């Protein structure tokens, strides 16, 4: 049950969220988005242009996802158009203090392009050395 479509442009995964994110699907969506990063992308763009509602559970999800990507030295980049209702919501909760937000997909992709692939650490599990 995935509330987004994934596409990859120049190696950057872009998740277009087309369903509401709320307490019903936030946890599962966080996991699916983390998986969408893949092994060597250094950025994940989450496009909220077509998202109608994102509630406090959705905000929590994005903050946790951002932390998770940080651990993998990858960056979460959001697309929230200035005309979106979600822009007001993001301002209220101070989301831009924690996560990069761009008003359009081209701008988000420019930021992602500054971070060439391979900068991200390999998936934690694969970077671990075997110990007795």
């Amino acid at each position: 049950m995935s509330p987004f479509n994934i596409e990859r442009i120049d190696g950057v995964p872009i998740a277009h969220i087309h369903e509401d994110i709320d307490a019903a699907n936030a946890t599962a969506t966080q996991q699916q988005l983390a998986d969408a990063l893949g092994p060597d992308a250094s950025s994940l763009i989450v496009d909220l242009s077509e998202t109608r509602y994102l509630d406090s559970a959705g905000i929590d999800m994005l903050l946790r996802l951002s932390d998770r990507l940080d651990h993998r030295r990858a960056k979460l980049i959001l697309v929230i158009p200035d005309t979106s209702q979600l822009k007001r919501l993001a301002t209220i909760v101070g989301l831009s203090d924690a996560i990069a937000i761009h008003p359009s997909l081209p701008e988000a992709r420019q930021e992602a392009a500054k971070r060439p692939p391979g900068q991200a650490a390999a998936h934690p599990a694969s970077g671990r050395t075997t110990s007795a």
Partner: protein
Amino acid sequence: METQQLETQADKGHHAGNGNSALSSSVSESRRSHLLSITDSALGYTSLEDMLSELLERIRSALEVDTAAVLLLDEDRGVLVARAARGLEEEVRQGVQIPLARGFAGRVAAHGRPIIIEDLDHADVVNPILRQRGIRSMLGVPIHVQGHVIGVMHIGTLVKRAFEEDDVMLLQLAADRAALAIDNARLSEQRSVTAIMQRSLLPDALPQIPGLRFSAKYLPAGSGIKIGGDWYDVFQLHNGRVAFVIGDVVGRGVLAASVMAEIRASLRAYMMQGHKLTEVVSMLNDLLVSVGSNRGATLAILELDPEAEELEAVIAGHLPPLLIKPDGHAQLLQQKHGLPVGVRVGHDYHAFRYPFPSGSGLLLYTDGLIERRDEPIDQGFDRLLAAAETAASRSDSSLADRVYRTLLDETLLEDDMALLAIETMPLGDTLEMTLPARPNVLGALRNTLGRWLRAFGANEDELFDITLSASEAATNTIEHAYGAREATFTVRCEHDGRQATITVRDSGRWRTTRPQSGGRGLEIMRSLADDVKIDSDQHGTVVIITKQLSHQA
């Protein structure tokens, strides 16, 4: 071939069933009357297995043989399935299946005439149980119904025996007399299994959604073998949309019902995953073609967004849904049809959108509702359109019931039929909902609130602010209801044209100590709404959200 030589084609000189005069003279009268009594009494058994077992026991003693068995043809799979046996019970227990034209029973069925094996040691048999049991000689006859072979009845002996013409004729007589009883029993068995399956495949209860009314009529076949593959389904999707399906699987009986079950489950799964309608139907089509069920189905699937008051429809070879406009005018959705599903892989389906404002109605139905023998289908459509308009002008019962009764006044139903009706009506100034305290109701809550707010002219900002605030209050309630299985909460919505008030109330049956995890939700509510009041006591919590409206309704 050695085996062919050892077999006697036992129909030399006569065919079973048309040698009755020879029969009466050559068969001992007592054996014959004993057999006749079998089949008469056998008709009284309710279960096919009981009836066959009794029949075989009597054959065993009348013909003085060690084993007797009946295999019935499964036409869909082209195999004979052991259904009853005496002295050879393993055959049934192990579910022995013999392909047509193979082995002893397979050849009897394929050739449609008696076969005798004098010595099993040298014969071509598929079923290992016959050898394990130590059977030496066998006689098998086909079981015919109206010229079709429906199965095989065979007997066997543990010592070598040369079956004679009398034996063949007696067994054929028994098989012929049993054929009708078998056929009847099988039909009624199929009917009841299918009826149970069909009923279990229809929704238990239609969803309760404010401002929408669902009703359905479902009539399984009136008589005979016309047990239908008709079904309908209604289910809610994330984001408050609702899906409706009506369909008809090609063919009848248990197999059609099992294909129906597969289709129903697949459609629900694909829709819940958030796929678009056209994708859902394409995926189902490819699935059915790939599993090679050889059974197509016609269906219409529609998705309603109650807030947007819009319908989207994909039709796969099904009769067009009927739309009743708020002015009472009825029309068929004349859109491009795709092929029935399960026919051609990779077929493209098209979706069409229709406005569905308050006061509209929608009818989904199967052909049994409108088709009449010796009548062009257009007449059926005309009758349905007229019935829909008549039904729309009344309100004494559910829409499905009104349409059905209006149609029934004119003609009698000849086939099974399914009818699903959807009506949408204004929400009114005050709206109260009782919802289960589960996160998956949030989407429907927002959708209904959005529809209610739109109806009196709230602008987009107000709509977002009020809806999200109420949704946050509901989320808080749901989180704290954790562990209370039957917990519900109520949402009451009122407006006076200038201000909207949303009251979210716990039923108060669950624990009242609340962890402070909902901090961000509260922050969002306080920022978006003009005022948020929270009252908590031992009976539960009440959250009252108010917001001024700029546009006066």
